[in-house]
């Protein structure tokens, strides 16, 4: 009879789940869940306060009352032991592994009937079962909050009549995306693994890379409703304690109802919230996270997103890619220098083009300026307008390309890039020079490995174009200085953002504009790795076979 009632309740709650949100509407109805005028915060508070009681029926009633007997909430009743103690198993369907629950029920039902088992009476059966359970993770809950925390993570709750506690067994099992190479951060040479949406898997990817007990993972729950698990990962003894304390206090300060992506946390913990430049690095690649941890940085994992945050962020990090380290060092240095150059180009090139054509034509060789003049005959717009229009068109194209379904993406980019550009030149709307400049800038901006930095470069570009069109090189110089002063005044968790360029740290230059040989990178970054500057012994360079000279003492290369 009761089961029928529950079934009915579940059905009705399904039917009226929308109305449940607005208790006023369901006022005066005879059926459906009982009308409840408490708002969300009151409900949450009530939830926290409710303890478990000794009566099974009371507990189950409370659960259904608090969760509104959601349709995925499963309650399976059973009897345990020869004394037929009433028990119930509660779990959320879809989050659990059904086989684990079968195992659980088998233990409760069968093991307790085995002969020669002590303590199967109502008082002791709880402890007996707890002892006999063979699941890996087992916790206890004494109030509704802990209980629901467990269920919502995929645990299964075991409640016995007569005990005011519940056993939480780990029975998680849901479908996960496979570990793929992240699409936004591809490499030529390097691991193909990328983070996925599951926190556990993500942290495991790091554990597999750094097998030290000193890799510590601290967990915090952020979000009053979402209760998102956020994990701080660091290497104890390497990451600065001050930095850790600052990060913990900033995370604790966050009071929000839900954290759905790490970008939200990033905005809360950023130092310069109005800055165009990202001061927190986000990545999908475990190798980047691992190498940052080894430098003494801290990683912030957020459940439900593959994007991991790394603090403190430094400008140089945003222009580094794993390939730099995996390729031999001349190639690594070359591509890195190239990337820095193309980053600057992606900011300044259109502005320079406008400034040169409008203010300093003397910079161009005679033949070139004549060609530019010739191709501009009949173009109705001034150079600056032309550049701005084309840049905007390109930005729209880029954004559209991002949102388009995969199947028609290439088609649109062909239409946009080729046909539009070609037709615009043929119709005399824009000059070919501008198209070349815009295309070059676009290509340069895509070589920035981190999207958040390349997008800020894109926005700055328009400012530089305007300044260049107003004051020529003076404007560009002013733009450059403004950018420089801004970048230099940025700090990420107290660490200067532009280090090691400003403040200039010679020792860290080995891994900045160029990438030095691995065996020459003897020291850790100075500001971050100050706790133990020595990373590896010096003098590990290749030697002639047979010559067994001891590595040089650390001081000799300690520059």
């Amino acid at each position, binding site marked *: 009879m009761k089961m029928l009632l529950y079934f009915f309740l579940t059905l009705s709650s399904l039917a009226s789940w929308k109305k449940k949100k607005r208790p006023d509407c369901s006022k005066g109805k005879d059926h459906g869940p009982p009308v409840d005028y408490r708002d969300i915060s009151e409900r949450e508070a009530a939830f926290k306060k409710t303890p478990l009681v000794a009566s099974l029926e009371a507990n189950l009633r409370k659960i259904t009352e608090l969760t509104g007997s959601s349709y995925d909430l499963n309650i399976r009743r059973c009897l345990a032991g020869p004394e037929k103690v009433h028990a119930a198993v509660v779990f959320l369907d879809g989050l659990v592994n059904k086989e684990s629950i079968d195992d659980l029920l088998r233990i409760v039902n069968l093991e307790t009937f085995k002969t020669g088992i002590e303590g199967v009476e109502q008082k002791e059966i709880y402890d007996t079962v707890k002892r006999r359970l063979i699941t890996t993770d087992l916790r206890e809950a004494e109030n509704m909050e802990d209980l629901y925390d467990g269920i919502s993570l995929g645990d299964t709750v075991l409640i016995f009549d007569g005990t005011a506690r519940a056993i939480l067994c780990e029975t998680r099992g849901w479908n996960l995306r496979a570990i793929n190479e992240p699409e936004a951060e591809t490499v030529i040479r390097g691991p193909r693994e990328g983070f996925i949406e599951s926190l556990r898997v993500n942290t495991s990817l790091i554990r597999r890379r750094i097998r030290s007990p000193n890799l510590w993972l601290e967990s915090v729950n952020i979000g009053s409703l979402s209760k998102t698990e956020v994990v701080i990962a660091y290497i104890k003894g390497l990451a600065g304690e001050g930095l850790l304390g600052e990060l913990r206090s900033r995370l604790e300060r966050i009071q929000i109802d839900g954290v759905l992506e790490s970008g939200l946390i990033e905005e809360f913990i950023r130092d310069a919230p109005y800055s165009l430049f990202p001061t927190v690095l986000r990545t999908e690649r475990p190798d980047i996270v691992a190498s940052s941890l080894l430098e003494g940085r801290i990683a912030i994992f957020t459940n439900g997103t593959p994007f991991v945050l790394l603090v403190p962020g430094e400008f140089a990090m945003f222009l580094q890619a794993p390939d730099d380290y995996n390729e031999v060092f001349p190639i690594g240095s070359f591509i890195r220098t190239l990337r820095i150059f193309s980053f600057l180009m992606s900011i300044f090139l259109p502005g320079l083009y406008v400034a040169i054509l409008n*203010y*300093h034509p*003397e*910079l161009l*060789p005679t033949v070139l300026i004549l060609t530019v003049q010739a191709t501009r005959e009949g173009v109705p717009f001034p150079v600056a307008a032309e550049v701005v229009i084309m840049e905007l068109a390109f930005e729209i194209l880029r954004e559209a390309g991002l949102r388009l379904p995969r199947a028609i993406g290439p088609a649109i980019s062909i239409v946009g890039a080729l046909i539009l550009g070609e037709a615009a030149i043929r119709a005399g709307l824009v000059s070919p020079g501008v198209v070349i400049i815009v295309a070059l800038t676009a290509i340069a901006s895509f070589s920035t490995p981190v999207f958040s930095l390349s997008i800020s470069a894109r926005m700055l570009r328009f400012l530089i174009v305007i300044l260049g069109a107003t*004051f*020529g*090189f*003076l*404007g*560009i*110089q*002013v733009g450059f*200085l*403004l950018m*420089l*002063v*801004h970048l*230099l*005044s940025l700090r990420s968790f107290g660490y*200067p953002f*532009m280090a090691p*360029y*400003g*403040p*200039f740290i010679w020792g860290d230059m080995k891994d900045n504009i160029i990438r030095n040989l691995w065996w020459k990178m003897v020291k850790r970054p100075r500001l971050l790795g100050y706790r133990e500057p020595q990373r590896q012994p010096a003098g590990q360079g290749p030697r002639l076979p047979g010559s067994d000279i001891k590595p040089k003492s650390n001081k000799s290369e300690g520059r």
Partner: protein
Amino acid sequence: MFTEKIVSRQLFYLFFMMRVTIIISVLPVLTAGQARQDAWIAALISFFPAAAIVLIIGALTLVFPGKSLIQISEELLGKLPGLLLSVIYLAIFLFMAGTDLRIYAEVLKASFLPETPISVVMSLVVFTVVLAIYGGIEVLGRSADIIFPIFLLMLLGTFSPSLTHANFQNLQPVIAHGWSPLSLAILAPASIAAQYANLTMLAPALDQPQKGLKAALWSLLAATLVLVAFALAVVLVLGPDTGARSTFPVFRMIRATRISEFLERVEILTIFAWGLGLFVALSVNLYSGSKGLSQVFGLHDNRPLVLPMAVIWVVFAIQGYQDYFEVAQVFDPAFFDVIFIPTLLFPPLVLWVAYLYKKLRERKKQEIGGRK
């Protein structure tokens, strides 16, 4: 309180760029006096009087580490006389920044932006400077870190191509008319060492204030070498006469250099880097000025004063000189050596006298106390 510190390396960069920027723009060893092809010798010798000026001003920072000139004069002379003495220095900062700014704006106006109002050009430059000062002395030191390599690259990029046109016959005859024509050419760059007055304001911001004087002297030496190099380059390429007749000799030298068809007429790039140096020079002056003024008023932060002072500076740079003829007169020895240098050296000398007097009296007191 949140204290901002710079290191002596950054101080070196700041002073180096500040001095090189202005000293290269007008190249006083060549344009002032009659040194002509011996300008480089004059440049070399000018180190010694300049170093003397730096020592007189800078040694105060060794005696009173961590204190600015304003604080020192208050301590030695008392509130009001000290204040009066400080005002001289504040005026000097104002004067120097205004002149630097005016010269830069004149270069731009003479060569690139003839129609843009000079006030707009100046405001733009000062705008960046103001923002830098809002960032604090730390930001200033760091921008020096980043700008210095760019600046050095510009110096090299200007200097080395000019050597392809070098005509070493231009250096002859060496000191044909004795040393007397050199005297003015030696004094002129030495007088510009007045910039080192900033040391008295910057040294307290150093993490090791005792190292400030050393860095300043090294920067003077480095700047002197650069001056020698450019005095040589201009004479080698343009000849002593054309060089001495120029308003901005180095600028003209670059304009007359042809590296290849693709790399001619590139002097705007020099102006670009020069502007970076000027940014540093102005920032240092503005920092010193506002810091000094805030100490006079007893404010703990100099930032509220920055914007009003910057506005006053732009006005001074525009109104202080009616035309470029007046700007050029600033480097006239009649003004610089007769009026400016005594004014510059007056406050530190007074302080030295006061300091020694105080020391003497203390010793006497001790002796008297010892007898008792």
